[in-house]
Structures are given as C-alpha cells and as structure tokens.
C-alpha cells in the first residue's frame, strides 16, 4: 500500500503545484487589474442576451479576443479592434473568449455593425445578408404574425426570404440578444495595455 499511496500523493502534489501556477497566481494577478473607466456593466436586458448567446452556443464559432497586431496583424486589420486586456472582461461571468473563428471575432461587433435592424435581420437568416454564410438561422427567436401590433419590432425582409403572408417580428429574446451584441463595443482606450498600444509601425 505504501508505494501506491506514494504515487497518488506525489501525483496530487504535482497537480496542486500546477494549480498554484496556472490558477491561483493568474487569478491574483488579474483580479488586481484595473477596470477600464469607460467599460459599462451590462444592463439587465444585455445580460439576458448574454445568456442567450451562451444557451445557443455562439461561442463555438465566434471569439471575443482580438490579438496583438504584433503577433497577428489580421485581427486589427479586419477591424476587430485593439488587443483586449483582462480589465475588459471585468463584468464577464463566465468568460466567452472562444477558440474558434468559423465566424468573425465579435469583441467590437457593436461598434462595427451598430444597427439593431441589421442584427435582427442577420439573426433571422444570415443568408439575407451574406449569401454564402454558414451561420444557422434562428427562426425560433422570431414570431410570425399576421399583422404587427404597436410596439412590435418588425424584421424587414426581402420578399424571397420573407413569409408568404404576414410579418416576422422579433421576440424579447431576439431583442435581448441583439442588444447584447450591440453592447460588445470595446473601442475605448485600454489604460493597462502594455506596449502593444504604442504605434508599432
């Protein structure tokens, strides 16, 4: 039993050390980071939209972390924004950094595509905007009504994408998700950005 126990204790100790370096230390360092003064907390509606972003797995195709142009210039040149800093994520729980770019980075999509009508149209059916988009449609976030009532947000579709009769209106969920996307605007300067912000050219 002695040998078996020694192996298990040794294995656990090594993992605890790794936990110290990869979990505890970064946590201590990053929680001490300054929160950018221009970063606004999410409103209740935006937070609800964020939950929909999680529930429908947007993170599996969209990242929220432009890289340093010194490393990957494409991120800046595509207009995805300055490199993100830990403080930018102060109100993000859980994080949605993402590891896949089947679709573009969304860290500044609110600044890049600030029209809520565009966002709703694109969510209803991405192919109304980009013919070859492979993003799924989200018809379940919209309602098909005969006639929109006062206060309904109508999605204006080209005839070929619209229903044969009646109108498509956004549900509260669709509006919340669109509001969250519009809130993704981190174009303010990052006070803590090291070197990278200085002109590189």
């Amino acid at each position, binding site marked *: 039993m002695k040998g078996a126990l020694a192996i298990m204790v040794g*294995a656990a100790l090594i993992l605890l050390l790794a936990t110290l*370096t990869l979990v505890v230390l970064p946590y201590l360092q990053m929680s001490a980071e300054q929160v950018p003064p221009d970063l606004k907390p999410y409103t209740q509606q935006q937070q609800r939209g964020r939950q929909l972003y999680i529930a429908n797995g947007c993170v*599996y195709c969209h990242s929220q972390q432009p890289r340093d142009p010194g490393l990957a210039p494409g991120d800046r*040149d595509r207009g995805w924004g300055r490199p993100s800093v*830990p403080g930018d994520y102060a109100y993000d729980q859980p994080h949605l*950094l993402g590891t896949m770019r089947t679709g573009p980075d969304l860290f500044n999509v609110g600044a890049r595509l600030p029209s809520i009508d565009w966002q709703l149209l694109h969510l209803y059916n991405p192919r109304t905007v980009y013919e070859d988009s492979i993003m799924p449609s989200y018809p*379940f976030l919209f309602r098909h009504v005969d006639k929109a009532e006062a206060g309904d947000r109508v999605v204006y579709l080209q005839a070929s994408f619209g229903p044969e009769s009646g109108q498509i209106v956004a549900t509260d969920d669709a509006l919340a998700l669109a509001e969250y996307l519009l809130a993704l605007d981190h174009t303010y300067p990052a006070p803590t950005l090291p070197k990278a912000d200085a002109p590189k050219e």
Partner: protein
Amino acid sequence: MTPTIAILLIITFVLSTVGLLLLIWSIANNQFSHGQKAARSIFSPGEEGHSEDPARPADPSFTGDNTAQAAAIDARWTADQSSRTAVLAWLSSSIFWLVLGSFFGLVASIKMHLPEFLVTSEFLTFGRVRPAHLNTVVYGWASMAGIGATLFLIPRLFKTSLAGGKYAVMGSVIWNIGLVLGLGAITLGLSDGQEWLEFPWQIDILFVIGGGLCAIPLLLTAANRQVEHLYVTSWYLMAALVWFPILFLIANMPFTFPGASGATVNWWFAHNVLGLWVTPIGIGIAYYMIPKILGKPIISYQLSLIGFWSLALFYSQVGIHHLIGGPIPTWLVTLSIVHSVMMSIPVITVAINHHGTMMGNFGRLKDSPTLRFVWIGALMYTVASLQGSMAALRSVNVITHFTHYTIAHAHLGMYAFLSFILFGAVYFIMPRLTNWEWPWRGLISLHFWLVSVGIVIYVVSLSIAGWKQGVALLDATVPFIDIVRMTMPALQARTIGGALMTLGHLVFAFHFVAMLMHRGIGNQQPTLFRSAIKETT
C-alpha cells in the same frame, strides 16, 4: 513585472526540487533497480513468451506447465470474474454514449455546410448539438470506457480480486444519471457556457460522487494487493483517478473565477482532461496490452518511470497554450508553451517503449484485433503529441489558433489515439469477462476499416483546410466570406469521414450486444482477422 518574474523563478525552483525529490524517492525505493523484473510482473509464472490475446486465441491460451503455474492462471481468471459486473456496467454504458455522441457529431458536422439543416428547433441548433457531442463522447464514451478498462486492469495488476465492486456499479448509475441530466440541460439551453465545462455545476456534483465511488474499490483492491512491485500501468491509472476529481472540482466551482482568469481556469482544466485523465488511461492500457499480447516485456522499464513523472510535471501546465495572444499575462502563456515543448520528453520515452517493444513483431498486427487497435492508437499518441507541441509554438499557433486545424488535432488525440486504444481494450476484455468468443471476426475488420478510413478523411481534410484558413485569416485583404467558402469542401469531407466513423460504431455496438447475448459460437474457436492456419510464435 519584477514580482511576477520573481514568483515565477521561485515556482520553477520549487517544481524542479519536487521533481528531483521524486526521482530520488524512486531510486531510494528501488523503483529503478527492479528494472526488467518489474516489467515482467504482468506475466504469471511461466507465461512470458506466450501471448495472451483473448480476441485472437489462435494458439490455445497458456494454461501453465505445472500445478503452480496453472494455479496462477486460475487466480487470474478469478480476478477477471471479480470485476465482471462493474466493468460491464461501465463499458456497456460507454458504448451507448459512443453511438449517441457520434450522431450528435454527425448532425453538427452536417449543419456546418448545410446551415438550414434542422434549423427550426432551438433544441437542435448547432450551438447546442456541438457541446452535446463533446460532452457525450468525452464524459460518456471516453471516460466511462476508460474507467471500465481501469476496473478490469486493477485486479489483474494487483493479482487479487476486485474488492468493493458494488461501489463502482453504483458509481456508473450515478454517472449515467449525470450525463442524462447534463445533456438535457445543454439541449434546453442551460449550459454553464465554458467549453468542456458546459454541464451546470449542480449536475457536476453527480460526476464527482460517481467517480469518487470508483476510488473505493481502487483503494480496497490496492490494500489487498498480492504483488511486490506496481507495474507502470497501475501508476498511470491510479494517478488519473486522483487527478480527475481534483480538476473537475476546482474547475467547476461556481462564481469563483470571473472574466479573463476564468479563461485560464477553463483551459487549464480542458487540457488537463486530456493530459491528466484520458492520456494516462490510454497510455496505461497500451503499456499493458502491447507486452501482454506479444508475450514479451516492455523494453525499458526505467524509461517508463521517467515518462510517467515527466508527464505529470509537464502536462499539468500546458493548458494556457489555448490562449496565446489572449488577454492574459505573457509569462503565463510562455510557461505553458515551455511545458508544451517539454512534453516531447514523456512522449518520446513512451514512444521508445511502445514502438520499441513492437519491433520485430509487426506481423502480429495482421491477425490480432486488440494489438492492431492499441498499437495504432499508441502511434497516434506519438503523432498527436508532437503535433501538439509544435502547435503551441507562437509562430505556428498564430496560424492554427481559431481554425479547423485545432479540431482535427483534437480528433487525432481523442479518437485516433484514445478511442482506438479503448476499442482494442474492449476487444481484449470482453471475451475474458463473458467467457465467450467475439461472434463474427468480419465485423471486427469492418469496424476497423470504417473508423480508420473515416478518421483519416476527417483529420487530413480539416488539417489542410484549417491551415489555409489560418493563413488567410492573418491577411485582411482576403474577405472573411471567401475564407468560409474556401473551407466548404473540407467541411463536407468531414461529414463523410464522420459518417464512416458512425457506421463503424454501429457495427461495434451491434457486435458488443451480440457478445453480451452470447450469439455466435462458444469459447473454443479462435476469432481472428484471418483464418488461423499456422501459428509462428
């Protein structure tokens, strides 16, 4: 930055000291001098030189040349039977989840190139099917099959009966309930939102309990063990069973790690699930199956111990290479890159042992199903790991990060390495547990070729497309939608590869069920890929 660097130096120092102490401990306890004697501890007296290959008993199994040897073989039979219920509970569940997970994967793959496929239901939207696939195959198939194989190997390695098997059976029930609830939660849109950690934390408690219940038979059996030396497989298996609960518990603590530090915990966990959970199980199984089937010990026992401790030291710190270029401290990324490259040490030591032991015996691949699956799995471990070390380098990662290349790499590891070894293990274990032959050898071949061709199509097409995608992403003059168009053929090829793999799993599951129902012929006629006309060993 100075305090950070100082802390880093201290940690590095502590780490190396611990490594050194472990080494000294190993030497002081004669872990090294036992050497090849320990490597032989998996054979019963007189068995060395005789192949044990239940899926291929062409030559009659070794039954001992004298009463003492025969008694040892009998004792092993008793040990095998002692774990029967527990192992069958975990393995049968795992195969159910494998089939279900394959269909999730296939649907997700089709949706990638036919975005209007099954689009009206929110429960089947891509963003829910994809995490359902990952969680089903990781926690349902790989983890459950891995635990099943572990429960089978532990009594064999300790040369005693499995004690407390009923706890493991209870564990499998709780684990299955956790999977049903967790997948239900993802489908209903109640995901926790982080990759590999989608199950809501309340449900995660079930996995901690279910896994913890498996630790009881492990400890009880270890306490009863009848062997002087612990064979290297048991090192890996014991460590894996210690690591996983710790990892899973820390990473799932709710409301603890906000924002960017949440991302470091997320990827520290996700890569450790691979490195400290499924990898040790896979390597451990290969360390047992290869020498057992060949009837000869691994070539260097010393190397295997170095491989074990270096895996523990290095693999536990590689996770942050998933965040290269991300909003986290540079020292942290560098630390993970360094460890990723250092991983080549355990990988090469394991490769020398696995492939070196195979030297001169490659002919056996022709007719042994277990050896074929396990050795190809071991080979793919070498390939996937070296590829992973490369992809952690900044210059390579800047291209491969955020692309399909990473998806291909993940499948090379989880499938071509791990799942192949698990397939091989199931082919070895089942005849021993059920005292029955695999009914149709043609089905084993069919399974092998379907999944092999499938994974080759999968990995090759996505690796190439992913690389091109990564290069194009760096060049902002290429419009994004053009990159999407460019990857289309690979996404379609992936569906073909995935469909072949799914078909293979259906064949495998059918054969498994037929085995449980005692179809086909009984336990006298060998099951081989080819007819056993001559036996040359």
